[in-house]
């Protein structure tokens, strides 16, 4: 299989960045880690700069060139936003901030109430008994009762005594069983990501010797530098 120079160099640099960042596990800053970290931050910020300037050009300036002059307002407000840089004039930025806050509130409020309250409450109104389906019956019962108990756990402005005390205690148990499930799901996600990345740096086959070789080199160099006390100076 022929590998293009582009793919080859990308793979080698990515592998080097990978192992350099993993030297964090040695518990001390190594020059490899500092180099990789700053390269990563630099590229990331450069990329964000390009994307944002491009976006402001296509969505802010080209409409004006097309004749949609009301977009000039966007440019003026953006410039007002920049006044945050100068402490003396940073009050000017309050106007664009107020417009942004008001608009996003208007956009979010209606759908938020619907998707995160009304529809969620509606989804809890389910039959207690499903004929001929024991699993569904148990599951519905757990959802309704568990949900109600858990709501009482999250109530803070009513004194927790009498039945409320017991229900909030049970609600806490419901919460922790749920958290266990979520913990496991999160672990699966993180493990999948790590595995996916390890696949990326070991597939296709030609990457394997480079992956293992660079790992050994980076870690060996870091450990030797640590023994010689050079990490303090260059880390």
């Amino acid at each position: 299989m022929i590998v293009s120079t582009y793919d080859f160099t990308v793979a080698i640099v990515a592998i080097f960045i990978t192992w350099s960042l993993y030297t964090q596990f040695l518990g001390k800053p190594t020059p490899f880690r500092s180099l990789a970290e700053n390269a990563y931050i630099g590229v990331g910020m450069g990329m964000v700069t390009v994307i944002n300037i491009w976006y402001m050009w296509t969505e802010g300036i080209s409409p004006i060139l097309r004749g949609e002059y009301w977009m000039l307002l966007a440019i003026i407000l953006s410039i007002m936003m920049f006044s945050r840089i100068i402490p003396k004039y940073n009050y000017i930025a309050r106007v664009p901030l107020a417009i942004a806050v008001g608009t996003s509130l208007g956009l979010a409020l209606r759908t938020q109430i619907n998707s995160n309250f009304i529809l969620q409450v509606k989804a809890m109104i389910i039959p207690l008994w499903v004929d001929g389906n024991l699993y569904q019956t148990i599951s519905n019962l757990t959802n309704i009762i568990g949900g109600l108990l858990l709501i009482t756990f999250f109530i803070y402005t009513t004194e927790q005594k009498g039945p409320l005390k017991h229900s909030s205690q049970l609600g806490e148990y419901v919460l922790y069983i749920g958290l266990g499930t979520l913990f496991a799901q999160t672990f699966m996600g993180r493990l999948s990501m790590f595995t996916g990345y390890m696949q990326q740096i070991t597939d296709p086959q030609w990457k394997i010797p480079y992956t293992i070789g660079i790992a050994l080199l980076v870690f060996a160099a870091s450990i030797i530098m640590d023994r010689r006390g050079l990490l303090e100076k260059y880390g």
Partner: protein
Amino acid sequence: MRRGKLPYLRRVLALDVIEDAVGRSTEMGRPILESYGTVAFDQFVIASLSTLSYVARLAAKVDNRVIVPIGGNPGSMITRPVAVDIVKSAYEAEGKGELFNENDMPFLSYEFFSFAAGYVGLILRERPGAVIVGPETADALMYVEEANAVGALTIATGYYIANVAVLACAANYVMIGEEALAAGAYLSKEQSRITSLRTVDIFKFLAIVLVVVGVILVQLKNNFIIDLLSI
């Protein structure tokens, strides 16, 4: 009712834990490290700032330092002056204004990754006795684990539910979502903030009533509540 009687608000366990943590780190002769989140003002940042003020006062009482790493998002630019002001006035309120040092509130970076790296660096260098992690995202676990490695007590804020699950395992104490808001409102003692918490609870009671009535009606083959919610 406008002024005067405040609605009841439960004192959450988190406050006792925080008090303990501050005391323990002072005994050990180590500073306290607390962050209040990265984004611009949302309900969590506002609540965490109240907690920060409380911790700063507790620390000022016993002549301890509070280290506050700031950054992680362009929004933190808006919150920083407020946070500095809060910690400064907390020290002044205890008559220890001279102990306040703005260098203890370093602005690490806007860039998320370098903020996280700087945060971990602070933990390793300063070896705090207690680390109170604010509403952070996936990086919170990293701070908690590194803090534990230097022997600090850890209190974390669970910002979203998967985060709560992970932190509930790793941290010594986790403030589960609204618990952080309740703690903040309790400490601020502002009537309007307690009232907003009350409003949220009223919605919750409403949810309970809707679910109970709805389920009973569904059992009687009546879909009134479901139709009502479908409008």
